[in-house]
């Protein structure tokens, strides 16, 4: 079954966001369906961050509407969006390196065990679930007490993704998960995205790397200067066209000429 047959989980219509005199978003429409990986591409400053923060409840749109499972919604805080099922994995703020994998995994939603009048954190369950969820994502932890600081960048992203999946995310927003990673780790994160997509979760994958996007994306939306330049389905667009769209066309052609087509 193709993802396009489903109704969107989240639909954003004509979103505008102004910060004082600055128009960060000027009419962006975007939707995400179950089981698809929708790539949001754009160069630095194109408005990607503002846009996903609007979706995640950090910003309120100046104009436009957000529909969640067909109903119009207005998120007041990231917590609201999270409770509805929109989880965001931020590039560098996903994990706390000094804390153990288990403590990070359950942070903010710790399992509780009652002993008499006291509530304790249920470390046995927490450790077991963490190990199991990580194994499903293809990472074998030495121990759940291991500090996150000992994990590689790719593994940290994976812990954050596994955490979002475990807590019932319907939409997973990944903010440049591959931008700071090496080749091997990027491949691991991309394969994690593929696994998560197959469970029916809709993924919004933010990147400015066309090759990473094409590796896993089902649809591609390009943002430029606060506007959508269009959405293409897999197979309808070539990497070169995508790259051109991102950079804004003409100037890139000139640049590419001088660089011999290596960008």
């Amino acid at each position, binding site marked *: 079954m193709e993802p396009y047959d489903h109704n969107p989980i989240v639909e954003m219509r004509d979103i505008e966001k102004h910060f004082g005199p600055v128009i960060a978003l000027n009419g962006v429409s975007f939707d995400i369906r179950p089981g698809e990986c929708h790539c949001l591409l754009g160069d630095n400053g194109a408005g990607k961050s503002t846009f996903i923060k609007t979706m995640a409840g950090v910003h309120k749109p100046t104009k436009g509407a957000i529909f969640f499972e067909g109903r119009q919604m207005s998120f007041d805080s990231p917590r609201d969006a999270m409770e509805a099922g929109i989880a965001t994995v931020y590039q560098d703020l996903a994990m706390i390196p000094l804390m153990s994998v288990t403590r990070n995994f359950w942070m*903010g939603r710790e399992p509780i065990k009652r002993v008499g009048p006291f509530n304790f954190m249920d470390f046995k369950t927490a450790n077991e679930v963490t190990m199991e969820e990580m194994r499903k994502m293809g990472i*074998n932890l030495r121990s759940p007490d291991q500090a996150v600081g000992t994990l590689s960048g790719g593994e940290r992203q994976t812990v954050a993704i596994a955490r979002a999946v475990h807590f019932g995310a319907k939409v997973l927003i990944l903010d440049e998960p591959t931008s700071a990673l090496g080749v091997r780790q990027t491949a691991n994160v991309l394969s994690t995205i593929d696994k998560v997509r197959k469970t029916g979760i809709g993924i919004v994958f933010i990147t400015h790397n066309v090759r990473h996007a094409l590796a896993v994306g089902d649809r591609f939306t390009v943002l430029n200067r606060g506007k959508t330049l269009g959405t293409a389905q897999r197979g309808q667009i070539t990497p070169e066209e995508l790259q051109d769209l991102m950079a804004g066309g003409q100037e890139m052609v000139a640049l590419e000429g001088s660089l011999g087509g290596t960008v």
Partner: protein
Amino acid sequence: MSSMGVAVDERIKETSKLRKALIRPELGAIVGTIAVFSFFIIFAGDSGMFNAQGVLNWSTVSAQFMIIAVGACMLMIAGEFDLSVGSMIGFAGMSIALISVTLQWPVWIAILLTFALCIAVGALNGIIVVRTGLPSFIVTLAFLFILRGFTIFFPQLIERRTIIGGISERAEGDWLAPLFGGKIGGGFFNWLADMELIGVFTRGTRMGEPIVNGIPMLIVWALGLMVVAHIVLTRTQFGNWIFAAGGDAQAARYVGVPVNRVKIQMFMFTAFCACVFATCQVMEFGSAGADRGLLKEFEAIIAVVIGGALLTGGYGSVIGAALGALIFGVVQQGLFFAGVESSLFRVFLGVILLFAVILNTYIRRIITGER
């Protein structure tokens, strides 16, 4: 979801059980404790430092350090620190004295009002820090001066002096005062004396009574606070929030941890600990002085750092901090027993602080994989 076979990474070395047991935040403090005890057993073993009275002596001093170190430790793990602890001790003691002696109100009301006042000041510290985003160093430095100033000003204004006595008489028969100034286990020590396991006074007004006639409540408070704080920190949801708030406040907020609330509550807990210290001290001495608690904030912070906590927050151990406090107490009193000039205590503090921080930095690198 299909679970796929996971290859074991051949580059991860098996870590031995011993190494794993050793690599913990408290290691520096454990090594220090052993070293300090060995030193004094060798050099002051026959000076009376390790008989019942001697043990009680350094235990009491250690317990004082421990009470404020526990508070400072929790706050430091939550990513903040409080330089107003010492002034708070003086302030709380003076508050009890003024309310009970000058105003002639019952001591239990004085104690409860003082606790409420101190915790409110702690909350104010916390609220200013989280609202303004200023470093807690600056905010609590301001309170160090503000509280000390008031502690000198009010008794001067009202009583024309800076030491107020007469609290012991006021505390007689009070129901709350013994919780801070009393002793427990008197019967047990009488029994020990009957069994001739500990000595008895051979002359004077207390002839026939055991030399040690109970454990001061100060020590009970120290151990109680340590155990409760350790359990809260390592075994509860709230403990996880404390680590998260200090580890990375923004990341914690993103997953819904109420970081500001946690930090404010830790400031309140630190103030509570300072107030416990002050109340025990006032009940023991029977007086309050405007200069009490001087430099205590730094001693608390040093004990916490020796205990393996990270100055920038998110990492540390209450047990470690308590051991740090024990090292303090043993050395401060031990130098006295060994007949060494007591000013060398300061030298020792500086040296052990430096060693502890270097050792702890190394251990932490191993644990967290920082390079």
